């Protein structure tokens, strides 16, 4: 089973199968994410990399398989064991997610995009929620845009607000689903800078991306997927010392 390092395992997928209609898009995925590691999932379109990510916070409910997170089992399991299963909402409150299309709430200002979920989950006063929101916006360098609405922000700024929104809920794990794919080339850098900063701070991250240079820079667990399977995995030397021919071809064509 692929592991990133010898640290404590934070999330473990075992035998995750997912079908859409009659098509099986994940054929039993096993993956371990260690605390503090930065996993990068890459591969051609339709290989199932986004689906794996969306199974990690149960936005997609797998048909079979288990997601073990902080000692609790989520997902349907294999149908034989009688382990108590956690509720998806409990998992999602500890796992942050950043989407390709940002998915900010367009009817709320930047600060309220953070403060509304924070207050809804943590309770407390509006003042407290906004103080926390302001603190997080400041960390991604967008405090001066706190009263702007998403339509008044650039793509890169929107994505940074989305990252701040996920971080404001103190997640144990951050999932990034092609966070720079919808951005103008000029704006990719500012988002990657925020993600780099986050990686350096020790946050556990799983990133689905086509930015291979960024993957090479931060990835200490590299996962190459094709046609619903994990084909090859490796540590930070993966890009230099990968032996899998298909993965080599893919890396060669992208880099």
């Amino acid at each position, binding site marked *: 089973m692929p592991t990133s390092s010898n640290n404590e395992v934070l999330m473990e997928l075992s035998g995750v199968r997912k079908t859409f209609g009659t098509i099986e898009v994940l054929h039993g995925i096993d993956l371990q994410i260690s605390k503090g590691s930065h996993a990068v999932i890459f591969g051609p379109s339709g290989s199932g990399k986004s689906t794996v990510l969306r199974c990690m*916070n149960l*936005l997609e409910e797998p048909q079979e398989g288990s997601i073990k997170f902080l000692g609790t089992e989520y997902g349907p399991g294999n149908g034989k064991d009688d382990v108590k299963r956690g509720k998806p*909402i*409990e998992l*999602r*409150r*500890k*796992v*942050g*997610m950043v*989407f390709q*299309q940002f*998915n*900010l*709430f*367009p*009817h*709320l*200002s930047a*600060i309220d995009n953070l403060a*509304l*979920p924070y207050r*809804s*989950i943590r309770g407390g006063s509006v*003042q407290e929620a*906004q*103080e926390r929101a*302001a*603190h997080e916006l*400041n960390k991604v360098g967008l*405090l*001066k845009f*706190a*009263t*702007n*609405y998403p*339509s*008044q922000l650039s793509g890169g700024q929107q994505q940074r607000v989305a990252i701040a*929104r*996920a971080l404001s*809920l103190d997640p144990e794990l951050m999932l990034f689903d092609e966070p720079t794919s919808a951005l103008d080339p000029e704006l990719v850098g500012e988002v990657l800078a925020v993600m780099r900063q986050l990686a350096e701070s020790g946050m556990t991250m799983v990133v689905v991306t086509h930015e291979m240079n960024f993957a090479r820079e931060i990835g200490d667990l590299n996962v190459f997927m094709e046609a619903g399977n994990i084909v090859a995995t490796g540590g930070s030397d993966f890009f230099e010392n990968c032996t899998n021919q298909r993965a080599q071809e893919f890396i060669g064509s992208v880099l």
Partner: protein
Amino acid sequence: MMRREEEGVAPINFMWHLVWDFKWDLFKGLLTAVNVSIAALILSMVIGMIFALARMSRFKVFSIFATVYVNIFRGIPALVSVIWVYFGWSLLFGHNFTVYQAGVIALTLLYSSFFCEIFRSALQAIHKGQREAGMALGLTRGRIFRSIMLPQATKIAIPNIGSMYIGMIKDTSTFAIIGMVEVVRVTQNLNSTYFQPFVLYTAAAGLYVVIAFLVDFIFRNVELNFSYPPQGRIAKFLSRKKKKRVEGLMKST
């Protein structure tokens, strides 16, 4: 007019002063129409929203019930609906509604089915990423609906609610048949005394048109206040205090 006199037919005498003389009667009729239609608007929106949720429900029983309801009442004309509610109900159950109650119920039955469709399409027009973002943050289903879906759906629905409301006001004209003293009934009464159909019905038409313009103006303002960032005066005024506080936070952080 000269021609008619030459032919020996009595000249038409347009008694436009009637409109002025009976302005208060016409105005009271208009108030009745507005009163009934606003009560029905509020009820239809509430019921329509419930039916919209039922129609999108995972439970087949609810969605089938809502679909049947919508298709029945979308198809019934207001005139038929109000006669059925006013006369039919008392025949069947021996309970008499007042004219006002019958009007509100008849309109609500019809328009709740239209509002069901308006709200359903507005909720379905919201990008699915919005719900997913709410779920990924760990918000409850109720919170996602109240704080994310509903505000965005309302904004999408506002122009349609406006045009539906104009339709509702016009449909109150059929309530003359059960004796509600609204614009058409007032016009009919005056006409039976003065026999000035052209003048009186032109006045009635004018009143409906004035209301339509007014409703359009109001709903365009409501839409402005619901746009993001808010552009209307009311929304700006309401968010002023909030903006000040955030600006204070921006300085202190």
